[in-house]
């Protein structure tokens, strides 16, 4: 036992000593650059536009963010580069949307989130850190699944007017990425859900789950069915997927509480 702690202490102190010697390039003074961006003088940054629900919450910035998103989408759709297949990325409510060159990979036909298992609504609510919203418009869910140690809750409706409908809920407003979608950005439009911003994605696309520490969960990769709506409230981010039109999706979203 003493031997064990002895060698641990030795490795730890060597690591600390090594840390003091490591070469790290000098940092730039960022005060002016950060200030300029916060004053709104520059908005684009390394091609990634990040928008969490938090940024949308405060009114003046929300408007600015909407304009930026609209402008970015318009630019991506309108410019030749937007279509030519350069990788474009932006983030919204815990979902990263990417447009990538080349053919779409073919995801497995059956896929599930890591550790996905059925659970009751009451148990699910005890396991997750966000309030689970249930859309009254769809009635009682046929199944409730919790995944990845309580990081995601999914409501499954097997038989609805729109076929199978799935609603994933997660703490995407906390600026983590939960899902990555490979989309054609011309299929993405901005919509309003209960007075906040949402995105409507037309048609199937590849969906991959991103784990807590930022890795793609390969076994989760699949093609979505139908269309998808993404939005967020102050406490939870949601994605609704199924064979439904925009009006129906928005009605379901606004009945979720």
């Amino acid at each position: 036992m003493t031997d064990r702690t002895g060698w641990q202490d030795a490795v730890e102190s060597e690591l600390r000593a090594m840390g003091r010697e490591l070469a790290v390039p000098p940092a730039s003074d960022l005060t002016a650059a950060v200030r300029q961006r916060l004053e709104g003088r520059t908005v684009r940054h390394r091609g990634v536009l990040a928008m969490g629900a938090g940024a949308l919450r405060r009114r003046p910035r929300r408007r600015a963010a909407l304009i930026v998103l609209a402008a970015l989408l318009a630019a991506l759709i309108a410019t030749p580069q937007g279509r030519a297949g350069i990788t474009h990325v932006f983030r919204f409510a815990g979902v990263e949307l990417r447009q990538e060159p080349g053919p779409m990979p073919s995801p497995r036909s059956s896929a599930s989130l890591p550790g996905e298992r059925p659970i009751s609504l009451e148990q699910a609510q005890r396991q997750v850190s966000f309030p689970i919203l249930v859309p009254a418009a769809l009635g009682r869910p046929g199944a409730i699944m919790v995944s990845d140690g309580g990081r995601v809750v999914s409501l499954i409706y097997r038989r609805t007017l729109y076929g199978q409908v799935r609603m994933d809920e997660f703490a995407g407003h906390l600026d983590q990425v939960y899902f990555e979608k490979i989309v054609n950005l011309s299929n993405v439009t901005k919509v309003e859900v209960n007075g906040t911003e949402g995105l409507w994605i037309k048609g199937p696309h590849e969906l991959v789950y991103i784990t807590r520490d930022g890795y793609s969960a390969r076994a989760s990769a699949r093609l979505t069915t139908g269309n998808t709506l993404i939005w967020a409230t102050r406490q939870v981010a949601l994605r609704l997927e199924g064979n439904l039109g925009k009006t129906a999706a928005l009605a379901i979203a606004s009945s979720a509480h």
Partner: protein
Amino acid sequence: MRRAIDDAEAVARACGGDLDAYSVLVARYTLRAHRAAFLLGAGEESDDVVQEAFVKAFRHLGRFRVGEPFGPWLLRIVANETRNLTRSRRRRAALALRLPSAESGGTAADGPVDTVLAAERRAELVAAVNALPDRERQVLVCRYILDLSEAETAQVLGWPLGSVKSRTSRALNRLRGLLVPVEQDRVTND
């Protein structure tokens, strides 16, 4: 004369939109944030990552709990940004750990024998840490190089505390195997 303000006061004023107060925090934490970004794998893009993190941190100040230390809270955003960067490039994090080259005067290549041996040993350790799986390297960087506690490491990397503990001990075990010859390392466990 300007009075120095502490983090809590700077955060409170920045929350109210005071960019001067926020600039104090930016200046105060740039070096730490940059070191963290670089060592977690942002490489040449560390300045960009830190800039993005400060912009996001400002927009999310509403979520900052009064009395919480600003450093680990900011570093979590830095770590997220670094991860998003490396993931969106679909590549492994830059192998960030390296020692200053001998010519630039960092280590003594022709000094006394024990100094030379120590320098070699140090270089072996750097190579061994660089060869660890991503997550194990990250946890060692946080714990021993950025000098964060286990709880802070859990916050910065967004992992459960148990994962921090288990990955740390797994990583230390691997380094033990690399640094200590197996013959001298027999432990009777029965």
